[in-house]
């Protein structure tokens, strides 16, 4: 079973919800940190790295003695990763998506493919659960291959994906294959605006999802009103509580620093499980 924890906007407490749910779920759970640009789950789930794998992508290498300078590869590349001043092309790996098209179109067979490292996937035995963390190298423009590799490295029966912020490719790559999506939001106009955008993406993908309201204030019905109107289920509310912010700042789990919150996280987890099996 795979549950993704997502939020349109960063900083809504998505990672916090994901790590606390993973710990409540217990030793057999695997948390995959798919926020590979800024992986943060390891701060809460410390442990020994049991394995590290390099994620790489196939990128072209030009065999200059074979290249006729015909520019077919340069014309083909929609990402402008190849340019030519007449002779063999110059290749700029930062722009390459690894589609392999240049090799296909080269009439001289002058392009081979080599592996370019994009980042790492680390497996961490965090004791209370397993953490699989993807980490993108600084300066690499597409996080998607690292996200896919991190997801593929999680082999447990119960897997939680901590999704990256935003509503574009990295989010879509994370959500694909998940059985259920938990959307974490906060009761502010910013939170609602980003929630709406994420819901649009989820509906386009035909995903099942529910909402958790973080930093909830009883007086504020912004998110409830929206969810009611859109027939979206609210699975739980984490109250605005300065102690939670302080625990987070210190890199501590809510369910450990403030055990009174354990039943809340357990009920959110159980609600997710019910929705998946229903």
């Amino acid at each position, binding site marked *: 079973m795979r549950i993704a924890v997502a939020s349109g906007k960063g900083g809504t407490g998505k990672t916090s919800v994901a790590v606390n749910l993973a710990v409540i779920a217990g030793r057999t759970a695997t948390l995959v940190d798919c926020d590979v640009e800024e992986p*943060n789950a390891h*701060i809460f789930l410390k442990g020994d790295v049991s394995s590290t794998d390099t994620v790489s992508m196939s990128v072209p290498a030009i065999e200059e003695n074979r290249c006729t300078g015909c520019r077919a590869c340069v014309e*083909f590349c929609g990402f402008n990763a190849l340019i030519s001043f007449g002779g063999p092309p110059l290749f700029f790996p930062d722009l390459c998506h690894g*589609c392999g*098209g240049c090799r296909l179109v080269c009439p001289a067979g002058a392009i081979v493919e080599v592996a370019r490292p994009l980042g790492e996937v680390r497996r961490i035995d965090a004791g209370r659960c397993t953490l699989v963390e993807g980490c993108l190298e600084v300066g690499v423009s597409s996080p998607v291959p690292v996200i896919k590799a991190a997801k593929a490295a999680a082999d447990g029966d119960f897997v939680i994906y901590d999704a990256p912020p935003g*509503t574009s490719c990295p989010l879509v790559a994370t959500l694909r294959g998940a059985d259920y999506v938990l959307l974490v939001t906060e009761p502010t106009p910013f939170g609602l*605006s980003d929630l709406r955008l994420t819901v649009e*993406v989820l509906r*386009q993908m035909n995903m099942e999802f529910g909402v958790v309201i973080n930093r909830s204030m009883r007086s504020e019905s912004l998110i409830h009103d929206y969810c009611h109107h859109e027939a979206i289920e609210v699975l739980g509310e984490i109250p605005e509580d300065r102690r939670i912010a*302080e625990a987070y700042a210190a890199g501590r789990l809510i369910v450990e620093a403030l055990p009174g919150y354990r039943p809340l996280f357990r009920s959110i987890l159980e609600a997710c499980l019910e929705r998946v099996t229903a």
Partner: protein
Amino acid sequence: MKELVVLSGKGGTGKTSLTACFASLAQPAVLADCDVDAANLHLVLVPEAERRETFHAGREAHVRSEACRGCGRCAAACRFDAMSLDGPSDSAMVDPLACEGCGVCVFVCPADAIDFSERMAGSVMTSRTRCGAMAHARLNPGADNSGKLVSWVRQQARRLSEELGCPLVLIDGPPGLACPTMAALTGCSHALVVIEPTMSGLHDLDRILALTRHFEVPTSVCVNKWDIDAEKSAIIERRIRATGGHFAGRVRYDRGVTQAQMRARTAVEEGAASAGDIRSVWGAVAERLAIDTVDG
């Protein structure tokens, strides 16, 4: 004309709320919302759009089902798993959310059944707000913020700043470190990094500073919600000063920021508890930028 970009490693550090406050302090400034994935500046500044255009970015594959023979070569060649043959019809189907627009399928298709047209990614706008002119964008769901879009928004903002004789462009930057952030950062006069005093914040700080160094943009750092963890705030401040960086100040944890947001106002306009802190950060950054401010 100077360009100031406001960045934060991760989202949710208060970057946009602070940018909106700076907009009300820096008048006249032109605003550029380059955080297109989670564009929120408009919720506070309530722009009235004056110009709107459709935005295209890259291309995407479309299978003409009547021409497709269902041979599956496209699915075999596509490295992004965007092509499948398991749909209800016998023809290949494109998953537009997975298609990266490389054109490999178009090249391998023996039936010439795949069109490769420009992708409609959203709309881009220039608007008027109570704090100055603003360039911003709205993406279609699943569409990518890109270097092109960020550059477009910045270009419109520069144009507005020239037309209006406005000395400052204030950019709300995208989160993360990938292509859109690089496009927002490159060539800026100055960057302000907004960081929270958390373990995550400390971790992100090094990565974002590596990026601003790479692009050789002078950078200031401010700590938001500093009193959540005074010790970590001190660590951040010391670390910045020790490396010769510019520490622009601290802003306190203030629920007034959210309350202001509910009323579509900035914390400074509402005179929230943190307004003084924000003014002082702005003063420090404005000094670095060597610009005059109305209120600084």
